[in-house]
């Protein structure tokens, strides 16, 4: 079948691209490069599968690879607290929320149009390549060689949250936003009393 062939070709290409990314990382920066290649492949491969797959459940679970890969990139950048927060909140929280949403979406395997996905992919990735070529011809990026070793800064993050010269206003505002969003989400999503089955209006049905 045609779609089966496309599916196989997609996953074969994805595997080859992953190996290529790992090899490029190993040749350019050794063990750190392999780690970077692995997490980059997880990130990009997960989101590619999410865009590609027909079933919403598979897309949602492939997002887990994306979020884990991003957490790994945070680790490589020395942001350990952020990596753990990323796994806790995204993989544990937001993904569970999205899976709740998946449960209410009727399975519609004809929803994905291959031509639409492919043309959007070509268009956007072409745009990224074009902008990347433009930018990289004018900017010299910092390289990893000049950097000091990353230090863990969990205690400093905690102090900065409550420091009047730091982020205490943003911190309290974030607390208020979270409370308001929680209350609003419960209020919006709850079934109204009038929506529940009323024997007087249901009639014989």
């Amino acid at each position, binding site marked *: 079948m045609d779609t089966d062939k496309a599916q196989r070709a997609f996953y074969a290409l994805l595997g080859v691209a992953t190996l290529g990314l790992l090899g490029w*990382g190993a040749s350019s*920066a050794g063990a*750190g*490069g392999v780690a970077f290649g692995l997490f*980059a492949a997880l*990130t*990009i491969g997960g*989101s590619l599968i*999410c*865009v590609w797959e027909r079933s919403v459940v598979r*897309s*949602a679970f492939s*997002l887990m690879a994306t*979020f884990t890969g*991003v957490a790994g*990139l945070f680790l490589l*950048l*020395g*942001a350990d607290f*952020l990596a753990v927060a990323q796994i806790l*909140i*995204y993989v544990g*929280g*937001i993904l569970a*929320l*999205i899976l*709740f*949403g*998946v449960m*209410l*979406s009727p399975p*519609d395997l004809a929803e994905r*149009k291959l031509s*639409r996905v492919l043309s*959007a*992919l070509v268009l*956007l990735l072409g745009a*990224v390549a074009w*902008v*990347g070529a433009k930018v990289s011809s004018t900017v010299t*990026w*910092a*390289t*990893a060689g000049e*950097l000091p070793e990353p230090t863990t800064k969990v205690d*400093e*993050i905690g102090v*900065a949250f409550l420091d009047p010269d730091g982020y205490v206003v*943003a911190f309290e505002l974030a607390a208020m*936003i*979270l409370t308001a*969003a*929680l209350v*609003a*989400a*419960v*209020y*919006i*999503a709850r*079934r109204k009393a009038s929506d529940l089955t009323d024997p007087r209006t249901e009639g014989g049905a």
Partner: protein
Amino acid sequence: MGLGAYIAVSAVLFALGVVCIISRRNMIYVLMGIEMILNAANINFVAFNRFNGDAMDGRMFAIFVIILAAAEAAVALGIVLNVYHLFESIKPSDVDLMRD
């Protein structure tokens, strides 16, 4: 790995998020695309923070982005639930009460 590699990963992730939003006809995919885009922005924040003296501003900003993403996901899911009750569909193009 240099800064350019992280920026490249983040740019591709951003583009895939946009593809996810514009090429699927399902609100759940729109939510997933938004999460990808926010993650791409976070990679940028942390990478620039790391390669720019390792002050903490970028990391703190990324933490606030994660907080807002969590709030956004909860409210957006409530909205999707409500849209499904109202329209019996979660295709974004079916929500057209204000069209005429």
